């Protein structure tokens, strides 16, 4: 409670002071509560029901769940999200850290560079995904350009190769998020106390050693935040895949989010779609809750 409430008014005014905060907070809270938790509960219920094209609230137990886990496409989607997520997180962190260290060398026009590095993240994923799709399309972009320039044997058809298509999505996704991770690391680098670094420099330690032994270990919280943010972005990734491959060729680039979408809307299997959504929610919750819990326990800066 505010200790500023003036004593002299007392009564109504003070009561208002006490209730107003709760009153004005409630619309936002109710909105979030209703839209999020109510609907999550509803999705969970559907995953145990007989819903197909239309919702049907007959309880069927784990029937939809067992159909989900025996689904061939779901297996592909899970495999893809592993490959995609792992490559995406590792590449973004490695490249982001390198770029942050690069920009930390007092390079001229750093602000301009940082903005350019960040552009992919600020732009609509649908548009940039479409641009990538044109660029990597053998008939239109890179490959055609190389052929037109006279390099006839040049070949880059990953986008339409079912074994390689997921890697083109990784490329575009890494392109998109690297600058963002760079910004996180850069802020971390700027927050490091310079004393130890100066001391190490006076001792004649080479720059790489200072980074490896002093600076990077201090960036541990940033690594943690980056992994959590990237992991949840990976699980949520939908637009980039829709724009680039539409989940194809075939099902080659299906991920849980596109799986859920296609089962809900084109295959009329609402129950299976709901089960897959609940599974994704559970994975993200397992990732986020411990992270937020640990963040909350630390004193805020």
């Amino acid at each position, binding site marked *: 409670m505010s200790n500023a409430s003036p004593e002299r008014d007392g009564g109504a005014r003070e009561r208002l002071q006490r209730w*107003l*905060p709760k009153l004005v907070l409630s619309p*936002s809270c109710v909105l979030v509560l209703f839209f999020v938790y109510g609907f*999550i509960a509803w999705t969970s219920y559907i995953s145990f029901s007989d819903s197909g094209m239309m919702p049907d609230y007959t309880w069927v137990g784990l029937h939809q769940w067992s159909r989900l886990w025996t689904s061939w496409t779901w297996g592909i989607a899970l495999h893809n999200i592993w490959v995609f997520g792992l490559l995406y997180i590792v590449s973004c962190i490695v490249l982001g850290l390198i770029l942050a260290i690069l920009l930390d060398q007092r*390079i001229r026009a750093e602000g301009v560079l940082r903005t350019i590095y960040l552009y992919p993240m600020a732009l609509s994923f649908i548009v940039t995904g479409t*641009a990538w799709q044109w660029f990597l399309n053998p008939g239109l972009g890179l490959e055609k350009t190389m052929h037109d320039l006279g390099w006839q044997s040049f070949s880059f058809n990953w986008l339409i190769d079912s074994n390689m298509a997921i890697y083109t999505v990784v490329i575009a996704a890494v392109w998109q998020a690297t600058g963002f991770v760079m910004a996180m690391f850069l802020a971390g680098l700027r927050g490091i106390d310079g004393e130890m670094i100066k001391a190490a420099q006076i001792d004649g330690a080479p720059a790489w050693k200072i980074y490896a032994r002093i600076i990077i270990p201090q960036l541990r919280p940033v690594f943690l935040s980056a992994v959590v943010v990237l992991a949840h972005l990976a699980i949520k990734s939908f637009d980039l895949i829709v724009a680039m491959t539409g989940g194809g060729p075939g099902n080659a680039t299906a991920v849980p989010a596109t799986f859920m979408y296609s089962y809900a809307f084109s295959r009329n299997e609402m129950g299976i779609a709901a089960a897959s959504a609940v599974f994704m*929610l559970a994975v993200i919750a397992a990732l986020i809750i411990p992270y937020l819990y640990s963040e*909350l326990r630390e004193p805020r800066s």
Partner: protein
Amino acid sequence: MNSNRFTNGALGVLAWGVALLIFFPILWLLLTSFKTEQQAFTVVPNFFFSPTLESFKMALAQGSGYWHYAWNSALIAVASTVIGLALAVPAAYAMAFYPNKRTDFLLVWMVSTKFIPAVGVLIPIYLVYSAVGLLDNALGLTLLFTAMNLPIIVWMVYSYFRDIPKDIVEAADIDGASIMQTLFKVVLPLALPGLASTGLLALILAWNESFWSITMTDHRAATLAVYIASFKSAEGLFWAKMSAASVLAIAPIIVLGWFTQRQMVRGLTFGAVK
């Protein structure tokens, strides 16, 4: 760290090289949009061509549908941002100036909902919307965007309010100003820059949103994201025109992004980066 002039120059060149590499797909889209269809497709690609606005004219021509989608995008983005700010300001005000022991928890809980994947609530929302006739409806999409951005708006406004010294608010209280007066005459003017950047971030996020636009709209309330997503089916045919439309769809963000990149990072990392 290294004051050696040569190394520094080399690093600068490297940094600009990376910038060019990162900007290349966008540049490529830009260049294509200034070509004619024939140039885009048949001419040996080069960076020296006479730019033409023909593709932009085509993209904006009547019947291309561009204005319909752009209008929807703009309307829904602005409306959801305004509603979001109107709901978030009182909430953030209460949390920043009348905190109690649950405030921190409340805040983290609100922000945590941003992590929840949209697919988790897609089916119920779709069912509700089809029952009440909000499918393919601008109001329906506005409400979704508001709900989607609200946690981030509350959180950002809160963090700007917290930067305002409490003494000022207490002084206004003691002088007998009502809560409304304190809010409108003292707090909001001080937090105006912060509110502006929060609003810009919300606009960008709403403008870029595609998941709900694709799942909840068909044509009537469809945004630019739906329009661009439909391009790949017609690939190669009107490539320059589609590039021009894409450029037009990202142009506002290219301009806004230049001014808001700091807020962007701050908002997207939930304050991990200030």
